Every structure is written in structure tokens, then in C-alpha cells.
């Protein structure tokens, strides 16, 4: 039987994005634990055979092997979301959704790096990364402020898409690297909306409110 396999590291933000979508789509899958810290398994031969870039996560579905978080998310939505909610068909919404996927891969890269620096002491300039993360969050907060006045609570269209899903973890985890939520009222509001989506799950650093 063909089976989806996620090569996963529990503390990795990209892996969490994929876990979120798998859960929200209700997809059965297998996970293989990859020890990124301190094992660096993602950059050793077994994993390099799947992804020569040595990045995480990696997803396989039958013979298909994918790396790059945004590509994996887009594939899963295309393959397993027949309602086309997560990756909209309509051209403008599709364009906007992929724009935010691009944003998460580029503008939020410093946020991901800042968190790794804080948790695992990877080499980088903390102040520069924090400033870049704040700049990205401000762009997101300004966007969601205006969206609210247009009567929408999601980044694109009138329901959650991959745009929301890919942006959520960096902001939700920002306290891991010393960036608080005080200055982003519109993102706080959106965060609460996102947590109520069916299939939502947490990870270390994103608390379960019990």
C-alpha cells in the first residue's frame, strides 16, 4: 500500500507546518524521526539520498520524494484537498496564496534562523535576525489589520489557506527567540482563529491551553 511518509524532527518549524496540514487534512501517514540536533542526521548520507540539500522536512508519497516545506504543502493540498480550500484554484487567490508561501520561505527565514540560534546556539547574528523577524511580522500585522476592515479574518479569501498555515508557526513560536506578541494585535487575533481550525495541533513552544 502506498503510504505518505514524513521525515520529521519534532522541534523543526518546517516539519511542524507539514504535520499541521497532514492533521488538518486528516491524512494517515508514517513519520520517521530524524535527529537534527545534535545528530545532524539530515545532512548525512541516508537523508542526503532523499534530499541532497540536507534540509528538513522531507516527504515521500509512493515513489515521489519532496523537500522544501512550501513545495510539500502545495503538493499535499493539490493531491488530497479536493475541495481546493487550502490551495485555491481561482487565479488571484492562488497567486496570493503562493505569494505568502514565498514570503514564509524568504522573509520569515530569519525568524526560523533566530529560533534555531536561540534553541540550539547555531551561529548567527541574533539582533539582525530579530529585527528581520519583526519587520516580517509587522508586514503581516499591517495586512491583517486592513483585512479585518474589509471583513476578512484570514490572509487570503474568506477561509484558511496554506498562506495562514505556513505563516502561523513563525509567529506562534516567536517567543522562543525573544520576540513578543505585544506589538501585533491583528496577528494575536488571527492566531486565536487559527487555533480553532479542525485538526489543529500544537508543538513544543506552542502551548496547549488546558
Amino acid at each position, binding site marked *: 500500500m502506498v503510504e505518505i511518509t514524513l521525515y520529521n524532527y519534532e522541534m523543526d518549524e518546517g516539519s511542524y507546518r507539514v504535520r499541521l496540514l497532514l492533521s488538518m487534512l486528516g491524512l494517515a501517514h508514517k513519520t520517521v524521526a530524524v535527529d537534527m540536533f545534535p545528530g545532524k542526521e539530515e545532512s548525512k548520507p541516508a537523508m542526503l539520498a532523499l534530499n541532497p540539500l540536507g534540509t528538513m522536512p522531507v516527504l515521500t508519497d509512493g515513489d515521489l520524494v519532496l523537500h522544501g516545506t512550501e513545495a510539500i504543502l502545495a503538493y499535499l493540498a493539490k493531491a488530497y484537498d479536493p475541495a481546493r480550500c487550502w490551495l485555491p484554484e481561482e487565479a488571484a487567490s492562488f497567486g496570493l496564496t503562493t505569494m505568502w508561501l514565498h514570503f514564509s520561505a524568504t522573509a520569515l527565514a530569519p525568524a526560523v534562523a533566530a529560533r534555531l540560534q536561540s534553541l540550539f546556539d547555531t551561529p548567527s547574528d541574533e539582533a539582525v535576525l530579530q529585527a528581520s523577524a519583526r519587520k516580517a511580522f509587522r508586514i503581516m500585522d*499591517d495586512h491583517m*489589520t*486592513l483585512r479585518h*476592515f*474589509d*471583513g476578512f479574518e484570514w490572509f487570503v479569501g474568506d477561509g484558511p489557506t496554506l498562506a495562514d498555515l505556513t505563516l502561523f508557526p513563525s509567529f506562534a513560536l516567536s*517567543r522562543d527567540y525573544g520576540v*513578543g*506578541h*505585544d*506589538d501585533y*494585535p*491583528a496577528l*494575536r*487575533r488571527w492566531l*486565536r482563529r487559527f487555533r480553532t481550525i479542525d485538526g489543529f495541533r500544537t508543538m513544543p513552544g506552542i*502551548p496547549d*491551553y*488546558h
Partner: protein
Amino acid sequence: MKLEAGWVPVALSASIEPGTSAGAVVEGSEIVVWRDNSGNAHVWEDRCPHRGMRLSFGFVRGDHIACLYHGWQYDIAGQCRYIPAHPSLEVPQTIKVPTYSAKERYGIIWATTAGEVSLPDIEVATGVTPVRSLYVERGADDVFAALTKAGTGDLIGNVGLLQAGDDRLLLAVQVVSPEKTAVHVLILGSPAVNAGAKQKHYAQWAEGLRFDLEQMAEVA
């Protein structure tokens, strides 16, 4: 203005939904602003007496706020009422979070530690429409100067009114730190008239104000 000097605007009322909390900073003092499920707003020192965790990271349950670390729950008077690790314990009266006076007026949550102070009197018979809280990486002096230059008159302490075409904006300033200032922006008049396009217009105006102020910081 410090919390002990008078009423400080700490959030737009609309930004703190029932059953939620947020952190804020007033001249270096960390505070938690939270709203219970009955709709009442509270402002406290942002510190759980147990391990010093910021309570704004926690969560609201009914009329209690709970700390994220170990779930200690506090009632609206700041009194600890429940410690999950010791469920049958009668919690000692000494475990209490310092609370501040909080008041909601003009669509803003205000806080102070001063005893007898009054809020500026503003005519809002037709109501107010919230726009946004703007966080600017600039000191308060520069922000006040920019607001005055933009035509803001009647600056009473930390509050000013700005005539913008036919609209009047209410601008309330919160000093976060020497390098950072928040401006809470509202439109005087009912949301029935101002909701939507006008809110968007003034949110974008506020972004422009922030850009100009921070641009000034870069060239200075």
C-alpha cells in the same frame, strides 16, 4: 507618562477580546491586559508570583487568568485561587498579583497606579470607532512633535485630537521605552458611519506616520 502619574492608554478595547490576554509595556514596566469572559478588562503587573513567568503568556478561563507554566489561577482581584499541583490546598492570601486600576473609555483600555486621577474630557456622544494601535520605533518626544506637525491640537497629557478633513481622530500615546512609542488611533463617531473604508483609510494614514517617523530615525 508612567503608570503612577495618571491614566495611560494600554490597548484598544477592540484588541482585547473576551477571554484573552496580551502583554504591554509602559515606560519599561511589563503589564498584562486581559478581559474575563464577562467582558471586564483588567490590568496587572505581568508576573506570576510563583516563578516570575509573564501572565500575558497564560490563558483566561472564566473570570480567572492562569499562568502558562504551572497553571496557577488568579481571580479578578489578583488573588491566587487554585494551584493544580495541590488541588485541595486552600491557597494562602499572600499569593497575589499586584493589580492596577483599569478603566475603559473612548474605546481604549486605560491603566494607572495613581489614586485620584481623572481622564481628559472628550466629547464622544456619537461614539468612537477603533482604527489600530501603532507601534513606532521612536521616542515619545519625536512622536508628539510629529503629531503636532500633522495638526493635532488639544494635546492634553497623552491624548490629542486631530481634525482630518471632516473626521476627527483621537490619538492616545503610550510610552513603551525611550526608543519606542505606541499610538492608539480611533475615529470620533459611530462605527455605523466609520466602519470599513474609513478605518482602512486611517490605518493606512497611521502606517504613513510610522514610516515618516522611523525614516527620520534613519537619517538622523
